[in-house]
């Protein structure tokens, strides 16, 4: 059987960075298995600018960011990419790989899962009405337009104010489509403020907060949708229905980490992130299986994905080379407004970075971090669920901590 020190599943930004991290920390035999025929993952269809301001100090398009990052490992003999190949099963550390040459088995001492995420489909949000043509997830429409040059509709309505939907509102407008509006169930937008400004306001596209699409109508092709308002408790308000004519509805209603492979393997998943439960090494509940990037938790910024990938790569290298973590293991607990924490547990003895999201919009407030031997408040000017938060705790802060660490938001 083919054997490697490390196999990385998925060659998106997380996978590329993981390969670099593993190489820089001593591994010499790294295989990246990628389903598509090129590296970069989702970045290849994100042709807008806004990537890499932190990593490269310039604002790049998605493909350009991927290319610049890939250049760091391009001629590296220790890292090999296998394209057009999908891992379809993992048993212990043996992967079944389907490729144009047929099925094969590959074994690794450690595996990093960087398989990205998928979009929530129409079925997941209970849209009523006929199954007519013209309803797409925003990412699918983006792929058609940016990779094939095919515009999926001329008169477009968008459900969900996630960034992909906002970016597509601008993109389709530029290509000559009429974007009638964007509806968001919550009373606040789920996309970045800059995207509301430059993708909607710049083109006078209305954003309907506290609204959703009740049903879709049409025979073969979508003809109109029914828009409805919701109250504070997100309950539909009868009588507020409104007909909107359109030939296309884009759904931008959330992303879900892609984890079927490791779920089947028995890796424990976090109910909130829907990714693996990991420690500070990004190691899952199964020894030697690591996760990073959107497969671990959905990120807004590629720079953070790259940083996380690199750290996972380093940790996998340490694991293969027999370097054990030293400090005491502590578990994170979240409550009162903090909806999740990555990593879910950690080893003391070094500076550590924690990433999390909050469950609602907070004005000026504090992130309260406490446990036996530690009590810290970190001031924030305003926090929204759509922006991932990052907190750094110093080794000295953590030294005196015992047992467990709690996180909450205090207004």
């Amino acid at each position, binding site marked *: 059987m083919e054997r490697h020190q490390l196999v990385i599943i998925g060659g998106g930004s997380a996978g590329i960075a993981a390969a670099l991290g593993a190489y820089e920390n001593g591994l010499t035999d790294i295989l990246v298995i990628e389903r598509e025929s090129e590296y970069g993952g989702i970045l290849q269809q994100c042709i807008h600018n806004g990537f890499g301001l932190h990593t490269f100090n310039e604002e790049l398009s998605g493909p350009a960011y991927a290319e610049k990052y890939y250049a760091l490992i391009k001629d590296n003999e220790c890292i090999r990419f296998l394209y057009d190949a999908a891992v379809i099963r993992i048993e212990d550390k043996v992967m079944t790989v389907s490729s144009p040459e047929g099925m094969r088995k590959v074994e690794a001492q450690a595996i990093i899962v960087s398989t990205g995420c998928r979009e929530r489909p129409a079925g997941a949000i209970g849209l009523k009405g006929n199954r007519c043509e013209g309803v797409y997830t925003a990412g699918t429409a983006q792929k058609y337009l940016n990779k094939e040059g095919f515009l999926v509709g001329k008169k477009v309505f968008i459900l969900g104010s996630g960034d992909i939907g906002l970016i597509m509102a601008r993109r389709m407008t530029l290509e*000559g489509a009429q974007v009638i509006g964007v509806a968001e169930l919550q009373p606040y937008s789920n996309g970045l403020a800059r995207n509301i400004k430059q993708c909607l306001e710049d083109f006078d596209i209305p954003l309907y907060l506290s609204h959703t699409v009740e049903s879709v109508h049409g025979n073969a092709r979508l003809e109109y949708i029914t828009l409805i308002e919701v109250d504070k408790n997100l309950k539909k308000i009868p009588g507020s229905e409104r007909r909107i004519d359109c030939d296309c509805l884009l759904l931008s209603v959330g992303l879900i980490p892609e984890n079927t492979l490791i779920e089947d393997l028995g890796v424990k998943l976090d109910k909130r992130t829907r990714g693996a439960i990991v420690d500070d090494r990004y190691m899952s509940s199964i020894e030697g299986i690591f996760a990073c990037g959107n497969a671990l938790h959905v990120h807004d910024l590629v720079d953070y994905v790259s940083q996380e990938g690199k750290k996972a790569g380093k940790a996998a290298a340490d694991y293969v080379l027999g370097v054990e973590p030293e400090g005491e293991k502590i578990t994170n607990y979240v409550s009162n407004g903090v909806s999740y924490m990555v990593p879910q547990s950690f080893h003391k003895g070094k500076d550590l970075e924690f990433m999390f999201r909050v469950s609602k919009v907070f004005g000026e407030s504090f992130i309260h971090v406490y446990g036996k031997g530690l009590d810290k408040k970190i001031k924030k000017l305003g926090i929204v669920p759509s922006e991932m938060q990052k907190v750094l705790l110093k080794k000295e802060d953590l030294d005196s901590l015992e047992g467990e660490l709690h996180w909450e938001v205090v207004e």
Partner: protein
Amino acid sequence: MNLICISCPRGCHLEVNKVGSEVVVKGNSCPRGEIYARNELLDPKRTLTTTVAIESSSCRRLPVISSVPLPKGKVMDACRALKDVRVKAPVHLGDVIVKGVLGLDVDIVASKSIEK
């Protein structure tokens, strides 16, 4: 006037005031915010990203980007002007695809390399 800085994903909320002939900016976390606010008041600009057709390649579209931001009002026109542009592989990141689009001092450049 309140603005949201679009220069990076952080999206700082800016407070912009004209004091005499001077523009005073508050709320920015870095100097780019001040530049953005000043431009937004006097001459708003936007970067254009789109694709053009590519031939002799396994890909159909080449992603492109404006070398510098364009006047906001010209973005749609510039995009339209690229409709019939066709290029041939190989193309490299940063190659100029259209020089001086719409007669402006702005080039349209490849934002990806496509070898074949």
